[in-house]
């Protein structure tokens, strides 16, 4: 292992992630190379010195501020939120309304009889009842029936309709 290739292995030895084989190669190399041995030692010192880098604690208000921001970020209930979230349902409802409107506007209108048709219907009613009227006239004026026995009495009892 040469001086350049040892760099990444040195790093792994430093942070304790080197494999046993890598560690053995580094140990072997630094035993033969005074420059790398010095560099290794110096890096170990730097690594240890970094333990002294100052830190801070989060302020007591950290959580309260975070909760306030979370509350601000929470979605507010708005009238357009539900329709936006359920676009398919809204589109379906709109389609149904439109279809109903179209059907209503094009449906066949009820046919009202014209005055002439009304007159015609009345005339037809009269014509339709003609046989009944004719039968009544025939029966009420049928003199031959009065000659039958007992008809005198019956006819006197039956009063013609005025």
């Amino acid at each position, binding site marked *: 292992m040469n001086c350049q290739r040892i*760099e*990444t292995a*040195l*790093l792994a030895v*430093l*942070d304790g*992630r080197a494999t046993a084989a890598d560690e053995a190669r580094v140990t072997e190399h630094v035993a033969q190379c005074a420059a790398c041995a010095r*560099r290794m030692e*110096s*890096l170990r*010192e*730097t*690594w240890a*010195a*970094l*333990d*002294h*880098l*100052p*830190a*801070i*604690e*989060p*302020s007591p208000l*950290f*959580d309260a*501020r*975070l909760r306030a*921001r*979370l509350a601000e*970020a929470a979605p507010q209930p708005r009238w357009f939120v539900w329709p936006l979230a359920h676009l398919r349902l809204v589109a379906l409802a709109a389609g149904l309304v439109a279809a109903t409107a179209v059907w209503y506007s094009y449906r066949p209108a009820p046919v009202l009889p014209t005055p002439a048709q009304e007159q015609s219907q009345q005339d037809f009613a009269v014509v339709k009842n003609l046989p009944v009227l004719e039968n009544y006239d025939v029966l009420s004026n049928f003199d031959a029936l009065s000659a039958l026995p007992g008809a005198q009495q019956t006819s006197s009892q039956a009063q013609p309709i005025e």
Partner: protein
Amino acid sequence: MSELQLSTAPGVLYTLNRMTTSDVELMLGVKAGDEACFEELLARYRTPLVVFLYRMVRDRAAAEDLAQEAFLRVFRARRSYAPDAKFTTWLFRIASNLALNWLRDGRRRTQELSLDRAEEDERPGLDLPDAAATIEQQMLERERALRIREAVAALPEKQRAAVLLHKYQDLGYEEIARILGCSQSALKSLLFRAYETLRARLAAEAAAAGKGK
């Protein structure tokens, strides 16, 4: 997590939850509308995220603002969450992008003016036996911390992000490469250059400090 609520000791309950529920499970809980899962994720990553962002942007208010924005984005994106990557990869990718954009947007003008001003409540990266330390030791430690802070701050932004994720977040090369959007070999090269720069700078500063005394 309901079976763990049988415990009467709140501390034990909390520890068990942390141990038994993975980040992905918690995020799936958030996706299902469980607010307690989001609280647990917040408890796990609030401090690491704020510290990472503070070390990136060197401004407490901005770091907290960006950390809140990162959590906000996680919450907003909960419904589309798919557990195809580690939660930390996703969270730190959001945070890194926010920090890099913040730095590139030129909002560091005021921060650069206060380059040598430490936050009053900064704590040392390493826990020291404060009671036993003399005033001189404390001063030396503070001076050393300041030198390290400035050496890290002077790194190019992407190198800084790589070092902070590698050294302090205990993330693997593959995960860091995903966060920063580069290949693993490019990341290793980036990290090696960054550590070499830090080594050279700290050695030069230590030599200068030695001469000054």
